[in-house]
């Protein structure tokens, strides 16, 4: 088995996939760092102070203005009200919600990247792991060796898991290393509030706990890894089922993007919560953003994703072992 994994790694490295992903991540982080820096600068100019309390207060006022002046969807209104309440909570307890520093940047980046950006990167690897062998014709050599088919697929799946781990770790390391140049390498121990729960537009603060930023980061990364594994496995299944890599990628891309869109408009369509793509914003549960559909919890989302993962894995193996290779 380790021989087979070595083979897969050799091919992956020769195709320079991980390198390309690394470059994409680095470029994006540099862009975000710059944007963040600009924003902070602008705020400082506008408010004339460095004090975060003034900034948070200003944010609350801004949001309240928007709430009172414009017509907007009820869902949006609720979401904004929740944000106001959370900000107020931070203010009341004298805790800076966005303590400057590379650790905070990393956390925000990974939270924002969890439901679309990281899954897209994972897709780059997962989508052609099997289908590229079919379209190149090398599958014929692979499957005429004295090695059982499930072992070959398993070696590919393990390679996928390794790549996902590398991608997630790389994103974390690059985010910290690059943003630290601007924001400074600190912030690990900044206190963070987690455990807000949202029900019918009300923020329930009874479960709120104070934790260090590194603890939250660890949880965030765990969840992001989990999301990446689920999405990667689905893309992997498509790559077994569909011979053409672009077709598989297209389907996966459509699913992910429709997830991002659905998240904003499915609140009244309850059964939509069984779609995997609506459940990808796991990190939102930690920071207390209202879920897209009433009644969704961290646990329910994790379970739904687990079912999708398991089904995809089973389908992949059964089809791969049984299929006739032309």
């Amino acid at each position, binding site marked *: 088995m380790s021989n087979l994994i070595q083979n897969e790694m050799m091919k992956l490295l*020769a195709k320079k996939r991980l390198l390309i992903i690394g470059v994409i991540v680095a470029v994006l982080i540099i862009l975000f760092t710059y944007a963040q820096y600009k924003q902070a600068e602008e705020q400082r100019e506008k408010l004339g102070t460095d004090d975060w309390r003034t900034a948070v207060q200003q944010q609350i006022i801004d949001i309240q203005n928007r709430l009172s002046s414009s017509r907007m969807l009820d869902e949006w209104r609720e979401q904004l009200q929740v944000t106001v309440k959370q900000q107020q909570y931070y203010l009341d307890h004298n805790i800076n919600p966005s303590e400057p520093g590379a650790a905070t940047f990393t956390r925000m980046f990974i939270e924002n990247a969890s439901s679309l950006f990281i899954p897209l990167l994972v897709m780059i690897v997962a989508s052609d792991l099997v289908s590229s062998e079919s379209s190149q014709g090398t599958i014929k050599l692979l499957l*005429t060796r004295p090695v059982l088919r499930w072992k070959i697929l398993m070696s590919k799946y393990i390679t996928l898991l390794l790549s996902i781990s590398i991608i997630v770790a790389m994103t974390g390391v690059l985010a910290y290393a690059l943003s630290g140049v601007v924001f400074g390498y600190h912030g690990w121990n900044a206190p963070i509030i987690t455990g807000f729960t949202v029900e019918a537009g009300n923020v329930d603060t009874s479960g709120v706990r104070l934790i260090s930023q590194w603890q939250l980061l660890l949880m965030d990364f765990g969840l992001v890894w989990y999301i990446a594994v689920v999405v990667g496995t689905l893309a992997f299944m498509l790559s077994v089922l569909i011979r053409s890599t672009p077709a598989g990628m297209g389907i996966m891309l459509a699913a992910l993007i429709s997830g991002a869109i659905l998240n904003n408009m499915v609140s009244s369509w309850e059964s939509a919560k069984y779609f995997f793509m609506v459940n990808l914003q796991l990190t939102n549960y930690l920071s207390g953003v209202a879920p897209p559909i009433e009644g969704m919890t961290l646990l329910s989302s994790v379970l739904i994703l687990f079912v999708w993962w398991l089904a995809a894995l089973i389908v992949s193996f059964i089809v791969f072992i049984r299929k*006739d290779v032309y």
Partner: protein
Amino acid sequence: MMSNVTLEVNSVRKTIRKREIIKDINFTVRKGEVFGFLGPNGAGKTTTIRMLVGLIKPTAGSIRICGYDVKKDYKKAMQHLGCIVENPELYPFLSGWNNLLHFARMLPNVGEERMMEVVKLVGLEQRIHDTVKTYSLGMRQRLGIAQAMLNRPKLLILDEPTNGLDPAGIREMRQFIRMLAEEEGMSVLVSSHLLSEIQLLCDRVAIITKGEIVKVGTVSDLLSVQERMSWRVEPIELGKEVLRSLTEVMETEDGYVLTSFDEEETPKWNKALVKHGVKILEMNRRLPTLEDLFLELTDGGGAGIE
């Protein structure tokens, strides 16, 4: 004798989407022989080979390689097999050497030494560390064979191995395959739609058309039946009359007269023609075309020349 048989195909059938593509195929390949698999496009050669190497599952029947059933004893059967199905598709982004390494890692007890050996065997020493992208078709074909030889197979299966090679390449490939059979004692199964190729290369041949094997035999047996003599004579009517009095005669559209070929008789016919004042412009020993052979085999013999 069992131990002499490297490939045994028993009543194999394959139905794809209700279409019967292979209908009850039986044949065996013996140790040290080059076995030809001859048939026109779409006859089912590639489909059969895919079943032999385990890529697709037969709807019915059994296949044994060196006595091991491909379905039940997959690993053992594959250990004795080397193959190229259709084109030698390798990883274009890896070097030739890394391609070999890739497949060597999938085999038990194949180390660098053996890799070196096969590289020498196919004569790729100079270019083995270049990426396969930069190889010519002939070089890819050779690398494909090197890859198939890694595990010292007892049975080598090559699907149209000379496809796309130039005449020199074809000759080289032919000599190489004969060498494998004669010196290394390997069995080689070669498919082709070219009779001339099979004729020069193989000891025995199975002729397949529309998913059925219509004949299995030694190459010389198959061909001798169908060998002919073609004559271009003037005047043609008189020539035909003279020949007809001696043997059976056919005429082709382009003005050739065909008779059977017989080393003893032909000189006598020649003499008779000359005696009757017929000018012989051309006389050729003509090998049957694949078409003739198929007509003969499937329609139960059209012209009836013995």
